[in-house]
């Protein structure tokens, strides 16, 4: 391999004089401690390297070795259930299982293509598949193991058309910056159920979709991502802690093994991979951690899983890019970010998709990125570029967060381009009226904003009853439907069926209340009625899978509303 000698050191970037060839993106090992780095610039005899570890103690004259390979991470069945650093090296190595059970699904002599399933792999987490690698166009299986086997033991052997053989192991390396190939991309027409009402019912995301969660500090990005990681209906979760708190990673590590996946009954940790580059870890590895996460996501997608990747926070990744770019002396563009920020972001989000895999299965990788805008200002470069590449935008609002109204997603600032394609999904899942109900709620919230501005001028008392009712209905939507505490055992997740029941109940309320007010019932009288409090707390008080309670609530509402109407008549 090629070698080089360090000529200058400053922070995470070093320069070296090369002897031999290096290529851009090549992984290198620096100094006596063999620190991992990547070649980021080539110019004549000089190479520039960003280093993924603490550079304290490095000096000019120290040596550096090329690896001849692009910066890669080690993929395999050992990932599920464990925590890794930004380059996928285990942070709790003792917890990572080394041996697995292999159950072959093909016989020697069969001709196979890339993506074909060789065997099922069983370990402490869920069963996974061993596939023919993406770069093997066609080959004949000459040998396959069965039974217990280590991560790097030969598991199968392929004879390639050129006469060479290829050993297959459970674990393999893949360059982080290279997307894994697929047969074709599929349209985003299947919903990813998040269990969050404001998302599924108002701003849904499709499998293979791309969403951003921008918000100032403390508005709920992390809790929302953790909540989705817990309750969304993905098969695999890749949780990338990019430049955020160590305690948050510890929290996932502590909580997830204790929580049960409602669909499988297994601990949530078994479907989760954590990639952690916390804010105090080396900044260059932060830049890599995002690609590492996406690569892991694609690896599971290729096995036919529905994968959801959470990246908290993509802003820290962009800042890492900015820092390294500054050290390289590149010309800064907006707010000091390099001019290629936007194209890097688009490359990242582009790797999300619902696909037909090489092996002919359906798989998906959904990407949800948190964005941390300075001073909570959404016009800054990272938020505004992100907006160009995502289809779903869940904007968090400081005012809501300060009132402890969670999730603090602002319904008027958020949108979903996936929504239009999911009408059929909702119809197939029991709600043919979803589109109309969604529209009615969004209209109501829009009207609320206008009326509140007006109330600030004329006072609420001076408004006509119909407008007061609009405010009441919108307030109820907020309290009863949009608010959903991540910490409530009954309400932290809400099935599509329960969402449909709740929407139906609300629609019935709107109709009855409008009719009542038209007949002269006072808006305050409706707000003071016993059923109103029950409506406001229905998410909390009625558990999933109990439609009878909703029917009873509607009945109570009809009876009390009729009584209110009679009182008015009697008074006349």
């Amino acid at each position, binding site marked *: 391999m090629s070698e080089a000698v360090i000529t*200058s050191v400053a922070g995470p970037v070093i320069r070296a004089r090369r002897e031999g060839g290096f290529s851009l993106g090549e992984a290198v090992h620096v100094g006596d401690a063999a620190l991992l780095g990547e070649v980021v610039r080539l110019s004549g005899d000089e190479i520039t390297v960003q280093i993924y570890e603490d550079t304290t103690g490095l000096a000019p004259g120290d040596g550096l070795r090329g690896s001849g390979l692009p910066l890669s991470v080690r993929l395999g069945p050992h990932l599920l259930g464990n925590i890794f650093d930004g380059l996928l090296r285990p942070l709790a190595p003792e917890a990572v299982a080394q041996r697995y059970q292999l159950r072959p699904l093909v016989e020697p002599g069969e001709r196979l293509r890339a993506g074909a399933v060789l065997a099922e792999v069983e370990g402490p987490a869920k069963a996974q598949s061993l596939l023919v690698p993406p770069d093997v166009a066609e080959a004949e299986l000459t040998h396959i193991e069965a039974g217990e086997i280590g991560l790097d033991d030969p598991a199968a052997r392929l004879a390639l058309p050129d006469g060479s053989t290829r050993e297959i192991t459970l674990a393999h390396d893949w360059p982080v910056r290279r997307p894994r190939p697929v047969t074709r991309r599929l349209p985003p027409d299947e919903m990813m159920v998040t269990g969050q009402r404001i998302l599924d019912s108002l701003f849904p995301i499709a499998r293979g979709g791309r969403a951003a969660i921008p918000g*100032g500090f403390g508005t709920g990005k992390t809790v929302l991502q953790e909540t989705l990681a817990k309750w969304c209906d993905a098969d695999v979760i890749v949780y990338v802690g990019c430049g955020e708190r160590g305690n948050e990673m510890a929290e996932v590590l502590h909580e997830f093994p204790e929580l049960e996946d409602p669909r499988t009954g297994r601990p949530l940790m078994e479907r989760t991979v954590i990639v952690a580059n*916390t804010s105090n870890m080396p900044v260059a590895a932060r830049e890599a951690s995002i690609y590492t996460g996406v690569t892991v996501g694609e690896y599971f997608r290729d096995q036919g899983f529905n994968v959801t990747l959470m990246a908290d926070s993509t802003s820290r990744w962009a800042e890492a890019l900015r820092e390294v770019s500054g050290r390289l002396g590149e010309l800064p563009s907006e707010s000091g970010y390099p001019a290629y920020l936007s194209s890097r972001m688009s490359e990242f989000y582009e790797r999300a998709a619902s696909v037909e895999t090489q092996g002919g299965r359906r798989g998906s990788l959904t990407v949800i990125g948190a964005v941390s805008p300075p001073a909570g200002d959404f016009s800054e470069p990272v938020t505004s570029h992100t907006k160009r590449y995502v289809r779903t935008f869940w904007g968090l609002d400081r005012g809501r967060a300060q009132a402890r109204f969670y999730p603090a997603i602002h319904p008027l600032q958020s949108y979903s381009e996936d929504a239009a394609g999911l009408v059929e999904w909702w119809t197939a899942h029991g709600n043919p009226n979803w589109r109309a109900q969604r529209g009615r709620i969004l209209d109501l919230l829009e009207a609320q904003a206008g009326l509140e501005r007006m109330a600030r001028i004329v006072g609420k008392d001076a408004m006509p009853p119909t407008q007061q009712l609009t405010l009441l209905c919108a307030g109820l939507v907020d309290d009863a439907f949009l608010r959903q505490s991540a910490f409530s055992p009954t309400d932290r997740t809400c099935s599509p069926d329960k969402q449909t029941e709740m929407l139906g109940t609300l629609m019935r309320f709107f109709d009855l209340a409008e009719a009542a007010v038209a007949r002269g019932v006072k808006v305050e009288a409706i707000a003071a009625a016993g059923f109103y409090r029950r409506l406001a707390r229905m998410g909390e008080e009625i558990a999933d899978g109990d439609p009878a309670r909703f029917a009873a609530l509607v009945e109570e509402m009809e009876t009390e509303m009729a009584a209110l109407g009679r009182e008015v008549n009697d008074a006349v």
Partner: protein
Amino acid sequence: MRFDLGAGGAVTAIEGPLVFLRRVVRAGLGEAVAVEGADGRARLGRIVGLDEERIVVELLESTAGLGIDDVTVRFRGEPMTMALGPGLLGRVFDGVGRPRDGGPPVPEMVRRRVDTGTINPATRGLPKDFIETGVSSIDILNSLVRGQKLPIFSAGGLPHDRLAAGIAQTARLRGEDEAGFAVVFAGIGVSHDSAESFRAAMEQSGALEHTAMFLNLASEPSAQRLLTPRYALTAAEYLAFDEGRHVLVILTDMTNYCEALREVSASHGEIPSRKGYPGYMYSDLATIFERAGWIKGRAGTLTQLPILTMPADDISHPIPDLTGYITEGQVVLDRALEHRGIYPPVNVLPSLSRLMDQGIGEGFTHPDHPALAQQLFAAYARAARVRVLSSVVGRDGLTETDRLYLDFGDRFEADFVSQEAMRGFEESFALGWEILAMLPPGELARLSDAQIAEHIAPVLARAETATEAGDG
């Protein structure tokens, strides 16, 4: 490996805090050096850049009095370290860990880097022990837990020092003994007066013998401010993770730290980010704040209470903004409350404790504590909106219910947030329900029927009896 680079010919330039040396020895990035001038005084520095010809040293003390021709440079051959051992408590050190109380150096049991490595997140335990601070707006609404980093966002002239000293004196787990507790105070660019008033407050309560102070005074070199929190935290980690104590670290004023960072960055000619602060300020601050926590298998914990003053009272200024993105919440002091005579002037709405959910409720404080906090927040937020409305349309333009919210808001500030003496948790808890009872139960959507029956109904019943008694 240690070297001395003799006087004469080694130094090629001195620019601000930077000293440029010819590279004639092997020295690595980040290593410590001592630079001596003709006056014989050793000045602490560290290597911040190297190429084939030169070594760039950043001095953490004044470069005044250094000449190009008469400098001796001692290379330590290792990054900055600190000697640690028994007897840290009760002592006063300077900003880089040297005794400033006339006492002997601390006996060296171990020597640690002041930039300790990262805590592996997989080895962290989850902070969850509720600390009673005696402050209602913190204990009930923004609870502090052991191992948390919870800064006070203050501003010039607000009583953050008094609040921090008060918390340092009271903050205990309920029913805990003194011996396991320690306070580390890091004064970063503070005036002599504020250092002294903290010391006096601790002395008065008899807590001084559990306290170690690290002082970089306003008059001392600003580059040293970059090291003061690191020395203080290295000592605190020793107290927590070697001696097994529960350590509360007060870092004040982090704004001075950030100013020093900006100054040093500018002297390096780096491209600044927002308002002239370096783009890496987030990561740099994180290396300080992330040192809070507890580690599985160790007895002690390290809790941080950093204080910063928001320039121009602006919470969106890069210093509070980046801090808020790193710390586990913030306690925000408010000038308008201060003007109304409310102490402590905590504005609870922008305040937050992110670890609260883990440290309160069933088995920690009271099962209904989370609901009480949620409802108080919701009601006070509504009261704040109504206040805005009433300032335009007047009290008469409000609905009946909104008028109740207005009164609720006033009483919440005057009776709940404001307090003369420290309050126990139970007292704060009871007070919270009492104030909520001002609102009609129908408005209390965050409370269950059972919670209303248990906590609100008795308050209403008492009020009724009192009225009847008054009538009779």
